[in-house]
């Protein structure tokens, strides 16, 4: 359980980097405009509000209940970005954006980056995925790859 929590915090950090890829010279924290954007970063227990405001150096191990983890608030040059991950029973069940810039350029970037975030989170838990659609799926090599792995997981696990 601790491992998965650490891993997902690392993922949050990685994805924030991804979202910040097109960063302009303006540094983080410059919330374009409105004052109350985003939420405190770190692990947020649903019962008790998050005590943690550090940059997730020592996250608490999850205990199998429902946990919410906020990424840090970043600015990609177009506006503030923050993501949040939901964990239930040790499994990551969702990834949402708490804040994202609203201009068209950012929307296009996010339409790629946010699904990609979901990928990073979810592909370690292929039991949550029933099938994969892809252009490469018709290749013979694919038999040994993703679909086969998922089929095998379901054959063994259910």
């Amino acid at each position, binding site marked *: 359980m601790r491992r998965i929590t650490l891993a997902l915090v690392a993922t949050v950090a990685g994805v924030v980097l991804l979202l910040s890829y097109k960063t302009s010279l303006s540094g983080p924290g410059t919330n374009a405009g409105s004052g109350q954007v985003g939420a405190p970063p770190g692990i947020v227990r649903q019962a008790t509000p998050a005590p943690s405001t550090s940059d997730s150096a020592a996250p608490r191990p999850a205990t199998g209940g429902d946990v919410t983890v906020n990424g840090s608030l970043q600015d990609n040059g177009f506006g503030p970005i923050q993501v949040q991950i939901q964990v239930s029973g040790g499994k990551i069940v*969702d990834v*949402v*954006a708490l804040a*994202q810039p609203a201009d068209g350029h950012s929307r*296009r*970037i*996010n*339409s*790629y980056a*946010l*699904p*990609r975030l*979901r*990928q*990073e989170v*979810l*592909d370690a838990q292929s039991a*949550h*995925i*029933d*099938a*994969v*659609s*892809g*252009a*490469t*799926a*018709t*290749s*013979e*090599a*694919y*038999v040994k*790859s*993703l*679909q*086969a792995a998922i*089929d095998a997981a*379901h*054959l063994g696990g*259910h």
Partner: protein
Amino acid sequence: MGTWVEHIMGMPVSLRVRGPVAPSTVDEVFAGLRLVDRLFSTYRPDSQISRVNAGTLRLGDCDPLVRHAMGLCEEARERTGGYFDALLPGPDGRPRWDPSGLVKGWAVERAGALLADRGATGFCLNAGGDMVLRSAPGQPPWRVGVEDPAAPDGLLTVLAVRDGAVATSGTARRGAHILDPFTGRPATGPVSVTVVGPSLTWADVYATAAVARGTGADRWLAGLPGYRALVVDRTGTRATDVGGLLPTQNSR
């Protein structure tokens, strides 16, 4: 949950059924797909399509399934403004039939209809990444990962689909294998197009035609009622969501 996997039409075909299913029904599903392969494969010199191309069999004398599929190919050509075309010049310049781009989806859709006829209410029939899905009331939706064309061991997103079809066409991994029928050259448009809708025949045709179409594929897809799409551009860094396919990012 029962799972069966066979290798047919050059790809893995997996069937997953929630709840009981008669073994004879499963046999029927795979037998139907093998029959389509025997009739249509351009890799088999004795298939009816190969014989039509060789000039030793007239289209009018083919199996009714072949004639039906060829009629669908003509309809596909019309529906896609010519960007799906089963009649393409071969290496020698003579026109050759290659209905593979339609037949795969159509065969899997037929197999899905057969499963439903036999009483299966929840199933996922996935032929190399193109699939039909059904969920009985009370069952959760199927979770379908969309492969990332830039990193084929990863996923772009995960779609929740209760009932319908998901098809992806593109130029990833096997190189540019979709030709622009107007130039005869490999398509240089989107690298990957995923289409979700009620029919796998048409989801697959639309995805293939969108890749062949290239520029303007997004707008064309947006005009297809009942179908949604995810278009990944050539750089692999930009995905366009046509019709609200992606999970809503701020709510669930």
